[in-house]
Protein backbone atom coordinates (compact mmCIF):
# COMPACT_ATOMS: atom_id res chain seq x y z
CA UNK A 1 0.00 0.00 0.00
CA UNK A 2 0.92 3.60 -0.50
CA UNK A 3 3.25 5.29 1.92
CA UNK A 4 2.02 8.68 3.02
CA UNK A 5 4.37 11.67 2.61
CA UNK A 6 3.63 12.74 6.22
CA UNK A 7 6.87 12.90 8.20
CA UNK A 8 6.51 11.73 11.79
CA UNK A 9 8.70 13.32 14.44
CA UNK A 10 10.70 10.74 16.33
CA UNK A 11 12.98 11.27 19.31
CA UNK A 12 15.14 8.64 20.97
CA UNK A 13 16.56 9.73 24.33
CA UNK A 14 19.95 8.28 23.33
CA UNK A 15 21.36 7.21 19.99
CA UNK A 16 24.25 5.27 21.44
CA UNK A 17 23.62 2.80 24.18
CA UNK A 18 25.19 -0.03 26.10
CA UNK A 19 23.63 -3.47 25.77
CA UNK A 20 20.65 -3.72 28.12
CA UNK A 21 20.01 0.01 28.38
CA UNK A 22 16.40 1.15 28.28
CA UNK A 23 15.75 3.54 25.40
CA UNK A 24 12.85 5.96 25.58
CA UNK A 25 11.07 6.69 22.29
CA UNK A 26 8.74 9.62 21.69
CA UNK A 27 6.89 10.02 18.42
CA UNK A 28 4.37 12.48 17.09
CA UNK A 29 2.55 12.28 13.78
CA UNK A 30 0.13 14.66 12.07
CA UNK A 31 -3.25 13.05 11.49
CA UNK A 32 -6.86 14.19 11.91
CA UNK A 33 -7.95 10.98 13.72
CA UNK A 34 -11.54 11.61 12.61
CA UNK A 35 -13.80 9.64 14.97
CA UNK A 36 -16.69 8.94 12.62
CA UNK A 37 -19.06 10.42 15.21
CA UNK A 38 -18.89 14.07 14.19
CA UNK A 39 -21.26 15.69 11.72
CA UNK A 40 -20.49 18.44 9.25
CA UNK A 41 -22.58 21.61 8.79
CA UNK A 42 -25.07 19.74 6.57
CA UNK A 43 -25.70 17.11 9.22
CA UNK A 44 -23.79 14.44 7.31
CA UNK A 45 -21.61 12.11 9.37
CA UNK A 46 -17.92 12.66 8.62
CA UNK A 47 -16.56 9.19 7.90
CA UNK A 48 -14.10 7.66 10.34
CA UNK A 49 -10.44 8.02 9.41
CA UNK A 50 -7.91 7.14 12.05
CA UNK A 51 -4.53 5.51 12.39
CA UNK A 52 -5.60 2.20 13.85
CA UNK A 53 -2.28 0.40 14.29
CA UNK A 54 1.19 1.39 15.39
CA UNK A 55 4.26 -0.83 15.28
CA UNK A 56 7.88 -0.31 16.26
CA UNK A 57 10.61 -2.65 15.09
CA UNK A 58 14.28 -2.52 16.05
CA UNK A 59 16.58 -4.26 13.59
CA UNK A 60 13.53 -5.98 12.09
CA UNK A 61 12.23 -7.32 15.42
CA UNK A 62 8.97 -6.00 16.83
CA UNK A 63 9.46 -4.47 20.28
CA UNK A 64 6.17 -2.64 20.79
CA UNK A 65 2.86 -2.20 19.01
CA UNK A 66 -0.49 -0.62 19.75
CA UNK A 67 -4.05 -0.64 18.44
CA UNK A 68 -5.71 2.75 18.43
CA UNK A 69 -9.44 3.44 18.64
CA UNK A 70 -11.13 6.74 17.75
CA UNK A 71 -10.60 7.81 21.38
CA UNK A 72 -6.94 8.55 20.65
CA UNK A 73 -6.42 12.29 20.14
CA UNK A 74 -5.71 13.99 16.83
CA UNK A 75 -2.01 14.14 15.92
CA UNK A 76 -1.36 11.02 17.99
CA UNK A 77 1.57 11.08 20.36
CA UNK A 78 3.09 7.88 21.60
CA UNK A 79 5.86 7.26 24.08
CA UNK A 80 7.26 3.87 24.98
CA UNK A 81 10.53 2.18 25.85
CA UNK A 82 12.61 -0.70 24.57
CA UNK A 83 15.70 -2.57 25.73
CA UNK A 84 18.76 -2.06 23.54
CA UNK A 85 20.26 -5.36 22.46
CA UNK A 86 21.70 -4.76 18.99
CA UNK A 87 22.44 -1.89 16.61
CA UNK A 88 20.11 -1.26 13.76
CA UNK A 89 17.30 0.81 12.32
CA UNK A 90 14.36 1.76 14.55
CA UNK A 91 11.31 1.78 12.27
CA UNK A 92 7.96 3.20 13.36
CA UNK A 93 4.90 2.43 11.25
CA UNK A 94 1.37 3.77 11.54
CA UNK A 95 -1.42 2.18 9.49
CA UNK A 96 -4.38 4.28 8.36
CA UNK A 97 -7.97 3.03 8.06
CA UNK A 98 -7.61 3.33 4.27
CA UNK A 99 -4.61 0.99 4.32
CA UNK A 100 -1.93 3.60 3.67
CA UNK A 101 1.14 3.72 5.89
CA UNK A 102 3.11 6.43 7.59
CA UNK A 103 6.68 5.32 8.18
CA UNK A 104 9.40 6.99 10.22
CA UNK A 105 12.93 5.77 10.83
CA UNK A 106 15.76 6.40 13.23
CA UNK A 107 18.67 4.26 14.27
CA UNK A 108 20.43 3.04 17.37
CA UNK A 109 24.05 2.03 17.96
CA UNK A 110 24.64 -0.51 20.71
CA UNK A 111 28.17 -1.00 22.01
Amino acid at each position, binding site marked *: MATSPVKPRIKLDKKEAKKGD*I*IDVKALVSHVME*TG*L*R*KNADGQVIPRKILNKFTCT*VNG*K*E*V*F*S*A*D*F*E*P*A*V*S*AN*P*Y*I*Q*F*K*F*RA*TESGPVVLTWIDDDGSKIVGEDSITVS
Partner: protein
Amino acid sequence: MSVSMTRRQALLMAGAAVAAAGLVDMRTSAFAANNIDELTKAFTGGAKPVAGKIKLDLPEIAENGNTVPMTVSVESPMTDSDYISDVIILSDGNPNAGIATFHFTPASGVAEANTRIRLAGTQHVVAIAKASDGKFYTASKEVKVTIGGCGG
Protein backbone atom coordinates in the same frame (compact mmCIF):
# COMPACT_ATOMS: atom_id res chain seq x y z
CA MET B 1 -46.09 -17.02 39.95
CA SER B 2 -48.58 -14.79 38.28
CA VAL B 3 -47.97 -14.01 34.64
CA SER B 4 -48.19 -10.27 35.05
CA MET B 5 -45.33 -8.72 36.97
CA THR B 6 -45.24 -5.18 38.28
CA ARG B 7 -42.56 -2.88 36.99
CA ARG B 8 -40.96 -2.75 40.45
CA GLN B 9 -40.71 -6.53 40.64
CA ALA B 10 -39.19 -6.71 37.20
CA LEU B 11 -36.56 -4.12 38.10
CA LEU B 12 -35.74 -5.87 41.36
CA MET B 13 -35.27 -9.18 39.59
CA ALA B 14 -33.09 -7.62 36.90
CA GLY B 15 -30.98 -5.95 39.56
CA ALA B 16 -30.54 -9.16 41.50
CA ALA B 17 -29.53 -11.01 38.35
CA VAL B 18 -26.87 -8.47 37.55
CA ALA B 19 -25.52 -8.51 41.10
CA ALA B 20 -25.43 -12.29 41.12
CA ALA B 21 -23.42 -12.33 37.92
CA GLY B 22 -20.78 -10.28 39.71
CA LEU B 23 -20.90 -7.49 37.19
CA VAL B 24 -21.04 -4.71 39.74
CA ASP B 25 -17.42 -3.76 40.12
CA MET B 26 -15.15 -0.80 39.56
CA ARG B 27 -17.95 1.42 38.36
CA THR B 28 -20.72 3.21 40.17
CA SER B 29 -23.32 2.14 37.63
CA ALA B 30 -23.90 -1.42 36.55
CA PHE B 31 -25.78 -0.18 33.53
CA ALA B 32 -22.91 1.24 31.51
CA ALA B 33 -24.11 2.91 28.35
CA ASN B 34 -21.22 1.71 26.20
CA ASN B 35 -19.68 -1.65 25.42
CA ILE B 36 -17.07 -1.71 28.22
CA ASP B 37 -18.38 -5.02 29.60
CA GLU B 38 -18.12 -6.81 26.26
CA LEU B 39 -14.62 -5.47 25.63
CA THR B 40 -13.49 -6.44 29.14
CA LYS B 41 -14.81 -9.94 28.63
CA ALA B 42 -13.28 -10.25 25.17
CA PHE B 43 -9.90 -9.20 26.57
CA THR B 44 -9.85 -11.34 29.72
CA GLY B 45 -11.84 -14.27 28.36
CA GLY B 46 -13.98 -14.15 31.49
CA ALA B 47 -11.08 -14.20 33.97
CA LYS B 48 -11.34 -11.81 36.87
CA PRO B 49 -8.57 -9.19 36.89
CA VAL B 50 -6.92 -8.43 40.25
CA ALA B 51 -6.38 -4.86 41.35
CA GLY B 52 -2.79 -3.71 41.53
CA LYS B 53 0.56 -3.72 39.71
CA ILE B 54 -0.69 -1.09 37.27
CA LYS B 55 -0.01 2.60 37.63
CA LEU B 56 -2.49 4.63 35.60
CA ASP B 57 -1.49 8.25 35.41
CA LEU B 58 -4.16 10.73 34.33
CA PRO B 59 -4.97 14.25 35.46
CA GLU B 60 -7.67 14.54 38.17
CA ILE B 61 -9.28 17.33 36.18
CA ALA B 62 -8.92 17.59 32.42
CA GLU B 63 -9.91 20.97 31.06
CA ASN B 64 -9.98 19.80 27.47
CA GLY B 65 -11.31 16.31 26.84
CA ASN B 66 -9.81 16.31 23.35
CA THR B 67 -6.28 15.66 24.54
CA VAL B 68 -5.88 14.09 27.94
CA PRO B 69 -2.35 12.82 28.60
CA MET B 70 -2.38 9.26 29.85
CA THR B 71 0.50 7.09 31.08
CA VAL B 72 0.13 3.47 31.99
CA SER B 73 2.93 1.44 33.52
CA VAL B 74 2.85 -2.10 34.82
CA GLU B 75 5.30 -3.60 37.32
CA SER B 76 7.03 -6.50 35.67
CA PRO B 77 10.58 -7.83 35.24
CA MET B 78 9.86 -8.08 31.47
CA THR B 79 11.99 -11.22 30.99
CA ASP B 80 11.31 -13.91 28.38
CA SER B 81 9.46 -16.01 30.96
CA ASP B 82 7.66 -13.27 32.89
CA TYR B 83 6.39 -10.24 31.08
CA ILE B 84 3.29 -8.17 30.40
CA SER B 85 2.01 -8.94 26.90
CA ASP B 86 -1.00 -6.64 26.47
CA VAL B 87 -2.58 -3.68 28.19
CA ILE B 88 -6.02 -2.45 27.19
CA ILE B 89 -7.31 1.01 28.08
CA LEU B 90 -11.10 1.35 28.37
CA SER B 91 -13.49 4.15 29.14
CA ASP B 92 -16.94 3.88 30.73
CA GLY B 93 -18.25 7.19 29.41
CA ASN B 94 -17.20 7.43 25.76
CA PRO B 95 -19.51 6.35 22.92
CA ASN B 96 -17.13 3.43 22.35
CA ALA B 97 -15.39 1.94 25.35
CA GLY B 98 -12.15 1.08 23.55
CA ILE B 99 -9.36 3.66 23.72
CA ALA B 100 -6.17 1.80 22.89
CA THR B 101 -4.42 -1.53 23.32
CA PHE B 102 -0.67 -1.72 23.85
CA HIS B 103 1.25 -4.87 22.96
CA PHE B 104 4.54 -5.34 24.77
CA THR B 105 7.28 -7.88 24.24
CA PRO B 106 10.19 -8.90 26.49
CA ALA B 107 12.27 -6.57 24.27
CA SER B 108 10.18 -3.65 25.51
CA GLY B 109 12.23 -3.71 28.71
CA VAL B 110 9.60 -1.73 30.60
CA ALA B 111 5.82 -2.12 30.27
CA GLU B 112 5.07 1.55 29.98
CA ALA B 113 3.34 3.67 27.35
CA ASN B 114 2.09 7.20 27.11
CA THR B 115 -0.39 8.72 24.69
CA ARG B 116 -3.07 11.38 24.57
CA ILE B 117 -6.71 10.38 24.59
CA ARG B 118 -10.17 11.81 24.07
CA LEU B 119 -12.70 11.68 26.89
CA ALA B 120 -16.32 12.62 26.21
CA GLY B 121 -17.04 13.61 29.80
CA THR B 122 -16.31 12.93 33.45
CA GLN B 123 -15.80 9.21 33.74
CA HIS B 124 -13.56 6.33 34.80
CA VAL B 125 -10.66 5.16 32.70
CA VAL B 126 -9.85 1.50 33.23
CA ALA B 127 -6.60 -0.30 32.39
CA ILE B 128 -6.37 -4.10 32.27
CA ALA B 129 -3.02 -5.81 31.82
CA LYS B 130 -2.42 -9.36 30.67
CA ALA B 131 0.69 -11.09 31.96
CA SER B 132 2.51 -13.89 30.14
CA ASP B 133 1.42 -16.34 32.87
CA GLY B 134 -2.25 -15.65 32.05
CA LYS B 135 -2.96 -13.42 35.06
CA PHE B 136 -4.86 -10.17 34.66
CA TYR B 137 -4.35 -6.95 36.60
CA THR B 138 -6.50 -3.86 36.65
CA ALA B 139 -6.54 -0.24 37.75
CA SER B 140 -8.99 2.56 37.22
CA LYS B 141 -9.00 6.29 37.65
CA GLU B 142 -11.74 8.90 37.58
CA VAL B 143 -11.13 11.95 35.41
CA LYS B 144 -13.27 15.06 35.66
CA VAL B 145 -13.64 16.58 32.20
CA THR B 146 -14.62 20.23 31.84
CA ILE B 147 -15.10 20.27 28.05
CA GLY B 148 -15.92 16.95 26.40
CA GLY B 149 -13.77 15.64 23.57
CA CYS B 150 -16.24 14.27 21.10
CA GLY B 151 -16.54 17.31 18.88
CA GLY B 152 -19.86 19.09 18.34
